């Protein structure tokens, strides 16, 4: 039996659930991961990623020294370099000086708008805070964003408009207190596995009724009372028809509507058109199912709604989320334990990176950049001359790359993101990446995006540094260093501080912002002192299970559920909605709707999970096809198929599963060799700027075996 040298408690780096991990370490090798059974979020349960997926830490593909491209890259002709021979190993001094020189040069030449940065929802709060501080305080630009734009931007925009909030209203584990809950646009079993366990326990142990509204027959459907299999992109008519039934049958909560909301009459008038019959015609969901779901949710004692990317990743993502908010406000299922509006956040720290200001419209704490009072507050905090900070909203993730042209964005700094996998319409993304004049990637691997870079700065991974993550239900938790970083890799916060000091020196700013942090805790203290929701959060208080923000002062116990008395916006606002069809509908040439998503065994752009044994469990992309469609295409499970859209095409194996409704096909997003995002459409939601990942038109045809990227890859799995 192996006795560990030490056991380090930390927080899982994968999804937004934020499970507690205990890393058992011998000779700096993690050989076992456990979780304490009294852990507040996950009660000792983990998923395959948390328990076994940490081994990317030890991959020989890790970047362990700073690298500079041997061949200088010209804008417009930038190429990808995965091979180490194309890179020169350099010292930290040389790398940081080079980056500082080039960024300052481009800033002097083209101004603040020429620089942009992708922060990282995998990195800590402290690191995101510091990176946005660097670009705001030194380069005076708000071109700061991260993958929240590709994720829950639609939900956040809707919650801000209707309630003035930006996060889950309740704690995930409160599902145990709901007697009815809706899961929509979320494959919770695969993307938030531990929350799915709590949902299933609520159904099977406590008799709660689950309503699944999703185009796919998800594993959760086995536990559901109702499944509404809607066509992708028809959320608004289905949710509005449910609201229609609730209003017509007077199932709404009049007391709540009168006391806490506004705009009911306008909403009620707008709902006239959204009859269940109309919704059925558009969405394909039986009118009776819609009415039953409406009654079940409205008549519940404590109804809750949980949603994922299927709501927000649409060109009408904001409207979809508003449709759900309307339902909660109509029924008063918010502001009490076991109720609420709960967008399940994807990344381990996407909530935290947003809270920390890694967004183009907001300083840390969601303070709008175009409000002068906020800018002045941060000018004082950062010791910047009055009027120094930019008052203009910056570019979003999606806009940063589409502005990569002369006169637009010239230099991009990427901390840990992989836009060459996660942006829609990758063939165009590729052109944008090629057009950049200077590109820096700060990462643990050379991923599809970093391969385009001029400089790669080797970052320490999550187990190699200290800091905090904020999970999907607003719980700030400690991340603790368990291992030394490999080679010369450094924690992101050290890299950013060192770079900032060099940039500041070159710019010769009259006032100097502070960059000499002794560690993450000092960075946290600075951020918490200016952001009211974090005033009461200190590292010492995080020792036992973390704290749920807002935590206004040091004696405050944290906030498990929000809005008991009022909404931040005062009254909750109803929004009358229009049905806007998906930008691209199926036609004769492209007869199927493609929807994309994630798998239990993999993570987003694949930078981590594809460097892990997780890849052995699920080594290839599979096309999910309904048997009716499979027959139409003459395809069987295991055949190679070509899937094409107007933008690109991929070849992958078919899996006939009847998971999707007929006419809808599914491809996971993780696999570079059959990247789903080569097919997706770069249409954006007008408010939130989130792309329509969840619906585009494709064709499916037979392909030759030899066209597969890796014909030897096999996935023989019996799981759902």
């Amino acid at each position, binding site marked *: *039996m*192996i006795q560990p040298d030490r056991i380090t408690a930390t927080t899982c780096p994968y999804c937004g659930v934020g499970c507690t991990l205990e890393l*058992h370490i*011998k*000779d*700096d*090798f*993690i*050989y*076992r*991961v*456990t*979780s304490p*059974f009294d852990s507040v979020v996950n*009660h*000792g*349960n*983990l*998923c*395959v990623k948390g*328990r*076994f997926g940490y*081994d990317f830490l*030890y*991959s*020989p593909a890790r970047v362990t020294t700073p690298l500079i491209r041997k061949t200088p890259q010209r804008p417009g002709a930038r190429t990808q370099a995965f091979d180490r021979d194309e890179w020169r190993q350099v010292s930290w001094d040389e790398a940081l000086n080079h980056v500082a020189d080039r960024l300052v040069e481009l800033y002097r030449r083209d101004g603040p708008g020429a620089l942009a940065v992708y922060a990282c929802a995998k990195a800590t709060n402290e690191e995101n805070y510091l990176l946005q501080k660097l670009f705001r305080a030194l380069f005076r630009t708000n071109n700061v964003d991260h993958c929240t734009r590709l994720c829950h931007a639609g939900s956040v925009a809707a919650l801000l408009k209707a309630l003035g909030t930006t996060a889950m209203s309740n704690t995930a584990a409160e599902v145990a207190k709901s007697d009815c809950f809706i899961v929509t646009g979320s494959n919770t079993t695969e993307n938030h*596995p531990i929350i799915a*366990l709590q949902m*299933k*326990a609520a159904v*099977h*142990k406590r008799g709660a009724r689950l309503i699944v509204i999703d185009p796919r027959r998800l594993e959760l459907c086995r*536990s559901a009372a109702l499944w509404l299999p809607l066509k992708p992109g028809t959320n608004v008519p289905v949710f509005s028809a449910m609201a229609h039934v609730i209003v017509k049958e007077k199932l709404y909560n009049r007391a709540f509507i009168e006391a806490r909301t506004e705009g009911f009459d306008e909403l009620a008038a707008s709902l006239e058109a959204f009859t269940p019959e109309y919704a059925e015609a558009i969405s394909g969901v039986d009118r009776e199912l819609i009415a039953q779901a409406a009654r079940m949710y409205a008549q519940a004692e404590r109804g809750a709604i949980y949603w994922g990317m299927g709501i927000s990743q649409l060109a009408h993502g904001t409207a979809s989320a508003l449709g759900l908010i309307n339902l909660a406000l109509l029924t008063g299922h918010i502001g009490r334990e076991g109720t609420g509006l709960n967008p399940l956040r994807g990344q381990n720290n996407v909530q935290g990176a947003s809270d920390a200001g890694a967004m183009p419209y907001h300083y840390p704490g969601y303070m709008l950049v175009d409000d002068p009072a906020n800018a002045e507050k941060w000018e004082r905090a950062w010791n910047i001359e009055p009027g120094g900070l930019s008052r203009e909203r910056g570019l979003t993730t999606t806009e940063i790359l589409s502005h990569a042209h002369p006169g637009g964005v010239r230099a991009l700094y990427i901390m840990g993101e992989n836009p060459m996998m996660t942006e829609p319409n990758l063939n165009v993304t590729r052109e944008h990446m090629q057009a950049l004049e200077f590109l820096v990637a700060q990462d643990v691997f050379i991923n599809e995006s970093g391969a385009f870079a001029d400089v790669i700065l080797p970052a320490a991974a999550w187990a190699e540094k200290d800091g905090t993550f904020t999970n999907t239900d607003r719980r700030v938790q400690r991340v603790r260093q368990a291992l030394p970083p490999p080679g010369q890799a450094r924690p992101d916060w050290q890299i950013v501080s060192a770079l900032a000091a060099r940039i500041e020196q070159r710019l010769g700013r009259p006032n100097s912002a502070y960059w000499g942090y002794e560690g993450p805790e000092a960075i946290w203290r600075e951020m918490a002192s200016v952001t009211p929701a974090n005033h009461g959060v200190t590292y010492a208080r995080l020792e036992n299970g973390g704290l749920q923000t807002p935590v206004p002062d040091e004696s405050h116990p944290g906030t498990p559920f929000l809005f008991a008395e009022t909404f931040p916006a005062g009254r909750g606002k109803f929004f009358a909605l229009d049905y806007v069809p998906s930008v691209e509908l199926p036609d004769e040439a492209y007869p199927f709707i493609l929807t994309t998503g994630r798998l*239990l*065994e993999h993570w987003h752009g694949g930078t981590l999970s594809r460097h892990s*044994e997780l*890849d*052995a*469990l699920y*080594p290839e992309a599979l096309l999910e096809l309904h048997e009716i469609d499979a027959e139409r295409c003459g395809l069987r499970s295991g055949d190679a198929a070509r899937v094409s859209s107007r933008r690109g095409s991929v070849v992958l194996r078919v899996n006939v599963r009847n998971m999707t409704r007929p006419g809808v096909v599914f491809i996971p997003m993780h696999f570079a060799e059959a990247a789903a995002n080569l097919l997706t459409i770069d249409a954006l939601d007008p408010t939130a700027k989130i792309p329509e990942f969840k619906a585009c038109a494709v064709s499916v045809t037979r392909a030759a075996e030899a066209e597969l990227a*890796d014909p*030897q*890859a*096999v996935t*023989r*799995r*019996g*799981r*759902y």
Partner: protein
Amino acid sequence: MSIDVHLTIDGQPVTVPAGTTLLQAAAEAGQAIPTICYHEHCTANALCRLCVVEVEGARVLAPACVAQVSDGMQVRTRGERVDRSRRTILEMLASAVDLSEAPEIQRQLEAYEAQPGRFPEAERREPALIDDNPMFVRDYGQCVLCWRCVQVCADDAQYTFAINFEGRGYATQIGTFFDRPLPETTCVFCGQCVGVCPTGALKPKREWLLEQGQTPDEIMALTRSERRRKQRK
């Protein structure tokens, strides 16, 4: 409203709510009762019988992990009959199962002065180690059949139902349906089973390879080359 129940445990009066198990009540009274199959996170199932206690007036010993309190009960957590029963259970277990990686059970063997060699004729359970997936190995020669893994795979946690008991009597073992390799079952490799295993029967593959004398570098190289080999088949 819970109803209070009064009883004595080892002569000491205790008051607990109705529905409390004797194991919990004893813990309230400061008496630790030894267990093997019991786990706070799992449904108690009285399989191992190490937790048996003597209840005044009862014909047989009661398993404390599931037996509930009742008014006026007089419970003895130690005594010759209880100790002999526990000792025999431990001796039988030690006669058939490899307990070398179950330190808690070994401590019980010592505490009850059990003779591991008391049943020298016993047939040892020595099934081959199963290495059928990249995440963990299963060495049922170390399995004490506590059932925790089956329970967490079912409705104690995961609702996945990939494993269950197979066989009867002495031949009982934990297995998959139709003996399929784990990747072909409903298993999602959450490892909840590994987390509750009280012996070395379920073990992360990297831990197992480390025990086999592999270095971390060799382990990382091995798992990767194995993966390639599997793919080529």
